[in-house]
């Protein structure tokens, strides 16, 4: 380790709004190719529709909070930095770890799915080496530079999204036969309780969109790129979710929860097979592959930034905060994602890891709006140096988002109670450990020097 590297100029600032879009949608779109259909198994078509609308409303509000916080702070840590600045070190470390776990678990899952898809196409391939190859390749791309990594994400995500749009309009304009009777027959197989139970899988449609704001420190004009790109991403996901639910529910029966759409591994691909059109089957197969790759790629980017930010503030070893002198990437944090992702991928408990990832995400969805409420109280005036983007209807939508996140988290108690309890204990321990270790740090925080902001209102300085 050399001082030149530690003291190097910082992360490169070259990203545009479409990179922000690509990062956000790239991570999330995989949830519309697979995973969302567990809402169907729990609550049928109507349960899935309710989960999509409720989770969609929550994510819209969180994305608006994230856009305001990201364009204001312009820091790589995203939710971690917002919690650090506006809540306190204990909450910051918990959120930083939650974001890291959320994305790295998703990267491991995506890489395994890519390996399985590759094996289906080329049966002689083995899953283990292909998974390693995917993780290593994406790590190398992210090591070489964020622009190349996110430009690749933009291309892959755009193709995968166009595949969904093409599929939807092909059905709507009659290129293949739709089956509206499937909508009624699979409407609500588990009764009214199923509508409530379906909520726990609603986040699959949008899980991770808040990560789009994590490239703020690397944007050329973060106060334009973050809100424009992130909200475009949110609208893309809302449109994609609606189209996916509609065509899949029309083409694949869901009247028996243990069969059909509710338990499908690749629902969009299977729906394309049911359409009988070869070009759609090929297009959706390509979309499935690309969306897994783009999700894993975006996860390497976001998890490394969260680890980098934790390291920069001495929550974990400062060794990880080095910036590459040539590529201007947090290269040690990027490389460190590789062994962790491999460990997750081959732990044998991937379903548990994914559930832990969802609980981690939901914890963030409580703390992101709370950070915004604190931010508004600490810095009430809308001056452009502090708050270049003012999200509307605050703080009401922040409180509402927190209420929905807690409601969805409570539904995990049915079926995943041990995962939920383990995650809550884990983050509670992390909270008190880091709170005690770093409470002196916040008392001496110089807002003018660190952020270029005036001091906050005296009545709302963090108490931690």
């Amino acid at each position, binding site marked *: 380790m050399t001082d030149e590297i530690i003291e190097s100029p910082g992360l490169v600032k070259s990203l545009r709004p479409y990179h922000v879009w690509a990062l956000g949608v790239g991570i999330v779109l995989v949830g519309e190719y697979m995973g969302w259909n567990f809402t169907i198994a729990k609550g049928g078509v109507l349960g899935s529709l309710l989960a999509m609308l409720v989770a969609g409303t929550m994510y819209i509000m969180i994305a608006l909070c994230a856009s305001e916080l990201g364009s204001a702070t312009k820091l790589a840590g995203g939710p971690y930095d917002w919690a650090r600045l506006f809540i306190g070190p204990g909450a910051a470390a918990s959120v930083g770890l939650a974001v890291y776990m959320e994305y790295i678990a998703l990267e491991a899952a995506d890489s395994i799915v890519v390996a399985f898809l590759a094996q289906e196409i080329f049966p002689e391939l083995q899953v283990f080496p292909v998974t390693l190859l995917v993780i290593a390749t994406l790590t190398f791309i992210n090591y070489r530079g964020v622009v190349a990594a996110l430009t690749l994400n933009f291309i892959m995500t755009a193709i995968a999204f166009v595949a969904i749009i093409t599929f939807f309009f092909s059905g709507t304009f009659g290129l293949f036969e739709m089956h509206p009777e499937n909508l009624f027959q699979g409407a609500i197989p588990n009764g009214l309780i199923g509508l409530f139970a379906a909520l726990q899988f609603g986040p699959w449609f949008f899980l991770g969109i808040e990560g789009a704001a994590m490239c703020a420190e690397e944007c050329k004009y973060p106060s*334009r790129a973050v809100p424009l790109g992130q909200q475009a991403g949110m609208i893309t996901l809302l449109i994609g979710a609606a189209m996916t639910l509609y065509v899949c529910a029309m083409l694949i029966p869901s009247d028996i929860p243990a069969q059909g759409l509710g338990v499908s591994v690749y629902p969009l691909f299977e729906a394309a097979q049911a359409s009988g059109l070869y070009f759609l089957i090929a297009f959706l197969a390509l979309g499935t592959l690309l969306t897994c790759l783009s999700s894993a790629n975006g996860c390497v980017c976001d998890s490394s930034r969260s680890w980098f930010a934790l390291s920069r503030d001495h929550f974990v070893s400062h060794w990880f905060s080095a910036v590459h002198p040539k590529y201007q990437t947090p290269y040690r944090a990027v490389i460190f994602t590789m062994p962790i992702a491999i460990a997750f991928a081959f732990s044998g408990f991937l379903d548990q890891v994914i559930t832990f990832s969802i609980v981690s995400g939901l914890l963030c969805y409580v703390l992101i709006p709370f950070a915004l409420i604190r931010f508004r109280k600490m810095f009430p005036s809308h001056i452009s140096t502090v708050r270049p983007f003012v999200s*509307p209807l605050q703080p009401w939508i922040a409180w509402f988002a927190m209420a929905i996140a807690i409601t969805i988290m409570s539904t995990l108690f049915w079926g995943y109670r041990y995962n939920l309890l383990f995650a809550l204990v884990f983050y509670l321990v992390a909270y008190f450990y880091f709170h005690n270790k770093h409470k002196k740090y916040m008392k001496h925080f110089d807002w003018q020097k660190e952020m270029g902001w005036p001091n906050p209102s005296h009545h709302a300085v963090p108490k931690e």
Partner: protein
Amino acid sequence: MVENDSRYKSGLMKDTYLIIGAILLLIAVEGYVVYMILYYAGSAVPSWIMIVYLVFFLLALGIESIGYWQVRHSIKQHMHEFRYYD
């Protein structure tokens, strides 16, 4: 100066078209899908539950539309100060 002004006007117009187009597409697709699913499957649940769907449908579209329009307002307000289109 004139060239700079026209570049900024053109840049803002492109962002405005993107925002309006995205909002219209969202309303059209989301409205169509929610209407079709409730038309075919809505009779399976009591009518009071339909109000829940309607409330969240309106909340999602309303908040996102207002939020994205606010992004345009923010860009217009700060585009010269932060030199967005240079």
